């Protein structure tokens, strides 16, 4: 197999005396979709945020698309050009239109001409089905639409991997669907994705591999079918039971 796009080896992280990540190792191959599930506080979001250096780590190494995650600002920026990130709270820039939100990073971080950046904005907006909202401001959009714009904003940087941090947790069930659909289409197009989620349906049907985080470490992982149909550890069995009830 080729070199993984994302590779975590023995990651440890603590806030003071509280260890939030212990010896986390994970490989994500090109074109693979990995869903990360687990209880709140299991370290899944923290792990995701380590991948693009939003959180620092105390031990281990993270490699993304050939870049080693370090803390020098310049190297981090080079890495972040290759890594898209979508947040739970959308985090669109409220003072900019949809188009400006999307074209900002290509223009500023990649020094792209305005016209070319606009072209990219049109393309990625079409991809998330929001072409008609190009001149709208974020607050004029529904939560689901805002999140799709946030996905488009990440896509505009043409990332090699995309990180999704509980991107539907702030949305109504009906809006969740439209965002998941966009993510599913991305997966079909071969995007490499790491998806921290509570959506078991998405994990089961879209992800190639599923990771169960528990007590700050990768407790169990496997292909979607094996993972859901024959979980090995009692912790995962219990977690799957409790999340089915919901």
């Amino acid at each position, binding site marked *: 197999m080729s070199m993984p796009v994302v590779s975590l080896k023995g990651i440890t992280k603590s806030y003071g005396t509280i260890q939030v990540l212990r010896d986390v190792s994970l490989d994500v191959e090109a074109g693979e979709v990995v869903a990360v599930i687990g209880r709140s506080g299991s370290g899944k979001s923290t792990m995701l945020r380590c991948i693009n250096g939003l959180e620092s780590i105390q031990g281990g190494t993270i490699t993304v698309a050939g870049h080693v995650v370090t803390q020098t600002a310049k190297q981090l920026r080079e890495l972040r050009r290759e890594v898209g990130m979508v947040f739970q*709270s959308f*985090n669109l820039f409220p003072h900019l239109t949809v188009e400006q939100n999307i074209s900002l990073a290509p223009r500023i971080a990649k020094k792209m001409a305005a016209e070319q950046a606009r072209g990219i904005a049109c393309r990625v907006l079409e991809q998330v089905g929001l072409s008609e909202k190009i001149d709208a401001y974020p607050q004029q959009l529904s939560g689901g639409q805002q999140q799709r714009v946030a996905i488009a904003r990440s896509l505009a940087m043409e990332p090699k991997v995309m990180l999704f941090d509980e991107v539907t947790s702030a949305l109504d069930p009906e809006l969740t669907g439209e965002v998941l659909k966009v993510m599913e289409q991305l997966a079909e197009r071969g995007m490499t994705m790491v998806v921290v989620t509570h959506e078991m349906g998405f994990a089961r049907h879209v992800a190639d591999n599923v990771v169960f985080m528990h007590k700050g470490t990768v407790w169990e992982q496997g292909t979607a079918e094996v993972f859901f149909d024959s979980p090995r550890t009692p912790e995962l069995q219990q977690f799957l039971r409790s999340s089915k009830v919901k």
Partner: protein
Amino acid sequence: MIHQFGIHDILYLLSGAGWTLILSAVTMIGGGMIGFCVALMRISSSHVLHGIAVVYIELIQSTPVLMVVFLVYFGPGIFGIELPKFPAAALALVVYSSAFFAEIWRGAIQSVPRPQWEASSALALTWLQQLRYVILPQAVRVSLPPTVGFMVQVVKNTSVTSIVGFVDVSRAGQLISNATFQPFRVYLWVAAIYFVICYPMSVISRRIERKFNVRR
């Protein structure tokens, strides 16, 4: 030398008012520029820059503006340098106002939610680019009303420089009052001139505030 308060005196007051305006403008521009840099130092991740900014702000905010004026005016005398009145007055007010501008803008910048920094850094923007394109445009809205409000304070605070003999509108009033023995009439004029300068600024400040409150 006693004379009746007349048109000459009004003209003299107006020329003093001109100096008040010039001193105010210099203070706002100079204090604004230094204040902006100090605000950036205060939010920077460098402990040294942050520390310098905090000490600077605390020191000046805890000192009466009158003392800042005295220190700047009389301080250089120790080294045998005599600062002319206008540069001394301007320097003192620039230093004084910069600490307040810095705190106003630091607060405005920090009012922009943390995730805006995260989202823009995840998009590979540098710290300065984040500030320029994402954070400051949002901070400016928050900072406008208190900034204009403080500018009104700056105009009124220029009166303290009359104590070292700088002939602003207050000092002009004092001189005329001494010559005419009509202090009430003179200072009524002085107060009216301050009002004419400051009231429009207050109105503008309130308008800006309303405009941005509606938009939110």
